[in-house]
């Protein structure tokens, strides 16, 4: 593959230039479609318009309308169609314009896609991807994190990257995986300048189900993912500077399957665990992680397991309300200090 064969904006890595998280996802999709003709895309406004966030800009011209398919507003319809195409040997990647809109497809994802292999109907390699998360004044219907609506469904995998490198490598793994994958992309990270990085020019993947140590520490473990990785890293830096506390930050990267070994290993090292997620509190992944640590590393704990999360409400529209709704650096600092002093 040469840089001449692809649109200019999708050749940054080939030119050795840094890319944003959004561009990393675009590159992953593009390269997978080049590598494997069975990969194709469906979604609302993804072809002519290039997607609401422009993830697939330029794809239509390069791959044609048979592989970059604009759909009506019909999340249930095109996700179900993706299942059928997957049965026939294709590898569809469907875009939810906002992941909030995945709800009409809940039936086909949980009752059909997720159960297909178990029911003996074979694998359905479908990736359902789209933007999630708050902080953009989108209000209740354009800001949600959807992971826990699907976390309880055996048969699904859930991926939620925090860096450009991981986004590209995880997307490739998701597309190559033979099980259905829900791939969440935080809007605030899409074009965040500080996340721009130079990626390897050669093909690489990041394995699903493996966490990443984003910062090493010895006194408190923060387990987190998505945009909260960066909020947690900011808090960890502040704690080291102001309190001399060494915080380890573990980026889950994949929520399902969870990397139990990495979580328990870090907790056994630090003895204190704080779980941070942007998703709302009740029924959030913190509860599941706390239970697993209780089962696997209880004797190593020196303090109760705590969590910092969004509050239990819909995502509000007004700026002040949304800022209050979301977890803050100061929340994480407060919780870590509590753990250290316990």
């Amino acid at each position, binding site marked *: 593959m040469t840089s001449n064969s692809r649109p200019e904006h999708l050749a940054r890595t080939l030119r050795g230039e840094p890319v944003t998280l959004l561009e990393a996802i675009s590159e992953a999709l593009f390269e997978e479609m080049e590598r494997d003709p069975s990969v194709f895309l469906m979604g609302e406004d993804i072809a002519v318009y290039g997607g609401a966030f422009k993830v697939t800009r330029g794809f239509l011209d390069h791959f044609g309308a048979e592989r970059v398919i604009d759909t009506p507003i019909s999340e249930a319809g095109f996700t179900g169609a993706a299942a059928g195409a997957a049965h026939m040997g294709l590898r569809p990647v469907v875009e939810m314009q906002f992941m909030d*809109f995945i709800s009409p497809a809940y039936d086909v994802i949980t009752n059909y896609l997720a159960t297909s292999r178990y029911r003996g109907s074979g694998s359905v390699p479908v990736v359902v991807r789209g933007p999630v998360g708050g902080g953009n004044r989108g209000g209740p219907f354009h800001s949600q994190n959807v992971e826990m609506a699907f976390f309880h469904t055996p048969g699904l995998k859930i991926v939620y990257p925090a860096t450009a490198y991981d986004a590209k490598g995880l997307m490739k793994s998701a597309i190559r995986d033979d099980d259905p994958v829900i791939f969440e992309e935080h809007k605030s990270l899409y074009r965040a300048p500080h996340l721009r990085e130079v990626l390897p020019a050669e093909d690489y993947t990041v394995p699903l189900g493996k966490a990443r140590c984003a910062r090493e520490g010895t006194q408190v473990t923060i387990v987190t993912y998505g945009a909260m990785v960066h909020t947690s890293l900011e808090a960890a830096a502040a704690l080291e500077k102001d309190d001399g506390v060494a915080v380890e930050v573990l980026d889950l990267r994949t929520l399902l399957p969870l990397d139990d070994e990495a979580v328990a290993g870090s907790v056994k090292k630090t003895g204190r665990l704080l779980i941070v997620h942007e998703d709302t509190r009740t029924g959030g992944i913190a509860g599941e992680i706390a239970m697993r640590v209780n089962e696997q590393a209880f004797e190593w704990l020196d303090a109760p397991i705590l969590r910092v999360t969004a509050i239990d409400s819909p995502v509000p529209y007004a700026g002040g309300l949304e800022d209050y709704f979301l977890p803050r650096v100061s929340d994480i600092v407060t919780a870590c200090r509590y753990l250290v002093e316990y």
Partner: protein
Amino acid sequence: MAGRDDAVDLYRALALHRAAATRLKSLRDQGRVPAAIRCGRGYEAVSTGAARALRAASDGSGDAVAPTPDNAGAFFVFGGTPLQFFRQHLACGSAPGRGREPGMCPIDVERGLVGPAALPGTMVEVMAGVTLAFRLRGEDRVGLVFSGEDETSTSAWHEGTNFAAARRCPLIVVVQAGTETSTGVHTRARGFAQKAAGYGVASASVDGGDVLAVHRAVEEAAARARSGQGATLVEARGCPVSRRALRAAGADRERHPYEHPPDPAARFRVRLIEERIARASDLDEVERRARAAVRSACEQALGESPPADEYALGGVYDGDPGTPPWYRLEPPERGLALASTT
């Protein structure tokens, strides 16, 4: 239309819609409301013509209407005020939604206003239920739901329409259709009115930019509904083409150059003058008053305070003001009791 006064009243409603939509667009251009917000310019005729054909009341005895964000005129006809409109969009603490939700309004049962939801098609289902309640209670009331042409692709739109048809609900479903080109993006049918036969309901197809034609069609549909003949599908052609359709039609733009439909407000004005129903100076005064009312309301809303941050906590459950997370309290609560706090 019964006479001159009715016609001028209708123009008054239409002018208020236009003034509010124009001011909202300015706020959007100034970055004071989110860029994605819909202003409703070009929907004046369908909004006011349809709503004025119903019975608005403020004591819970009138008809019900579910406007989309494009249908400010219907909101005003049913008793919503410009001040409420701008408070809601500007996320004021005094807004009906208290800054928690963007868009036009939450539900006002007394006035028969049923607030829009973001997920396309959902309000057709909801209004099927609203009108089912009317029928079950033997009330002489009807409901009307506006939907964009793109919404007709959703499961929710189909299921809601079919439910209303099957249960003979007194519901009027107005599809705000664009041009022939845009219609082709959403359906292979020649028009949305054709779909009515499949549901077994009556239909009408009218020029959505002709306020009197819309009024007449909805008046007839309401009469059918009140006489127990069930739902009607009204296709209002020539509404502004949805952004989605514009995008999807982009590849064919040379073959199908998009032309904005004629300005419905100007059309009605010309007609009123040409048919000697009103003088230009009278209509100028109507427009001036509408702009003044909108300007005053907008200025007041801009001067009002946002909701208190803690307001994000409440309103999730009846009577529950919500509890701040422990790490937001000063000083943070300590000890084993922590486990019982949010």
